[in-house]
């Protein structure tokens, strides 16, 4: 039985779906996280602790492990594990992207520089030190702009600024975010950020699989809600795209160009692009699959999940159809209405009863402190829909969302201590 190493940050959303996929495929699984499992001593052949901030060290640890328990494939499930997966892959001679390409997709400065060198259409950008006086920095920027931390995910810390005052506020805010206990980034990412020209337009997300350097488009998601800032909280993803075929083709071409520019040649990619009269602009390239629980919208061939496809490819197994099943599908990442402690959730049954709604998952737990963007790092939950047309999917998702309500105890409402 092939043994596969799965790199699972303890805070990932992807654990259940990847483990289910491994079970369905009959794969022998080794799970590695950055903190020890409570059963690591009982199951040392199945559970590993790795430092995801030290790819070379992690690769050494896995190499020692693999002497005793040979590994046939490695998959990093999230942004935090893409470079480590590449390092382990290189060290063990497994199917994986190069360390250089994984690093380029993980560090937004490197990504922008490589895309620029290859002539890929992307926002004009500059690197700015977060240490300098923000009011002085603000004088050297063309507005509107978008400030972006170098190594965070899912729009965390991404802020639009329309003028110098907003720019200065954004710098202070990003500094605070990067100083949080739950943020671990390298020195460069701690002290600098990108400043990009704001690109107006319709945003899409392309979910792809690179097979021997060739891009296979697994799904193109429209994002029907405008993302104009000041923060860029994603809400709706709907597939298939309702864009014209020639536009979709241009998006796929731009994505393939971007992946080539970064040196990515295998595995999943999740790419965000903006569209306007100039064509597609590459906003972000991630060398991993779609985040949160959103992969549950995707089914391939006779019902295979995205995770199964990814694991099969990592093991060098044949890939059956990568054609998505025929139905339209979509997900809403439930927006966090305001900061505070989640006290109660109402209307889940009513939301689930909406026609074409497949599931409603509240991933936040009661008593959890909800933190909206740009500081936030967790989803409130997800609504999934499947229907004959993308329009019906979008309608169902919006209707289901209206049936949900959340009791959130804000600090101002809390009784003061006696």
């Amino acid at each position, binding site marked *: 039985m092939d043994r596969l190493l799965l790199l*699972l*940050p*303890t*805070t*990932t*959303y992807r*654990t*259940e779906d990847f*483990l289910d996929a491994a*079970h369905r495929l009959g794969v022998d*699984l080794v*799970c590695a*996280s950055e*903190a020890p*499992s*409570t*059963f690591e001593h*009982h*199951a040392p052949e*199945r*559970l590993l602790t790795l430092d995801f901030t030290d790819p070379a060290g992690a690769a050494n640890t896995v190499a020692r492990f693999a002497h005793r328990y040979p590994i046939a494939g490695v998959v990093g499930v*999230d*942004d*935090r*594990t893409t470079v480590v997966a590449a390092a382990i892959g290189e060290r063990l001679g497994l199917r994986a992207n190069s360390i250089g390409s994984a690093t380029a997709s993980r560090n937004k400065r490197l990504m922008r520089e490589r895309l620029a060198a290859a002539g890929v259409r992307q926002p004009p950008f500059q690197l700015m030190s977060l240490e300098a006086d923000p009011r002085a920095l603000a004088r050297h920027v063309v507005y509107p702009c978008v400030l972006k931390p170098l190594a*965070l*995910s*899912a729009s*965390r810390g991404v802020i639009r600024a329309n003028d110098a005052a907003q720019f200065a506020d954004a710098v202070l805010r990003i500094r605070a975010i990067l100083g949080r206990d*739950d943020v671990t980034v390298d020195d460069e990412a701690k002290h600098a950020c990108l400043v990009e020209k704001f690109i107006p337009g319709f945003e899409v997300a392309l979910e792809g699989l690179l097979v021997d350097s060739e891009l296979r488009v697994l799904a193109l998601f429209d994002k029907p809600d405008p993302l104009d800032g000041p923060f860029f909280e994603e809400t709706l993803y709907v597939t298939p795209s309702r864009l014209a075929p020639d536009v979709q083709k241009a998006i796929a071409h731009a994505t393939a160009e971007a992946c080539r520019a970064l040196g990515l040649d295998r595995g999943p990619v999740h790419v965000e692009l903006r569209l306007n009269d100039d064509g597609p602009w590459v906003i972000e390239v991630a060398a991993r699959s779609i*985040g*949160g629980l959103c992969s549950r919208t995707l089914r391939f061939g006779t019902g295979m999940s995205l995770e199964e496809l990814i694991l099969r490819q990592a093991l060098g197994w044949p890939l059956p159809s990568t054609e998505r099943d025929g139905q339209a599908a979509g997900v809403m990442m439930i927006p966090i209405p305001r900061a505070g402690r989640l006290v109660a959730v109402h209307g889940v049954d009513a939301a689930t009863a909406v026609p074409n709604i497949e599931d409603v*998952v*509240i*991933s936040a*737990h*009661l*008593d*959890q402190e909800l933190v909206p963007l740009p500081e936030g*790092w*967790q*989803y409130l939950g997800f609504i999934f829909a499947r229907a004959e047309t993308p329009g019906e999917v979008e309608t169902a998702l919006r209707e289901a969302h209206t049936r949900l309500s959340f009791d959130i105890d804000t600090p101002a409402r809390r009784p003061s201590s006696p």
Partner: protein
Amino acid sequence: MSDDLKAKVQELIDSTINPAVAGHGGFVELIDIQDSRVYLQLGGGCQGCGMSDVTLKAGIERLIKEEIPEVAEVVDTTDHASGSNPYYTPGKA
């Protein structure tokens, strides 16, 4: 459920499984055994924990099936959505 099988599973939970998960504020309760399937409920820090699946499949299930070969499957009956103090909370990683 056979009393003998129940006793074996319970003993393993008491001697090995619960002491292991207690380190993360969790506990495991035996709910039922039917047709060689063991039904468990996870609580405390395990309920709603982002790593509960790993704990269950790579840890608890493996241990039970190795020590008690007559067990065919371990089923998690936990309502993870109701967990209010999970040890690991999922986030954007």
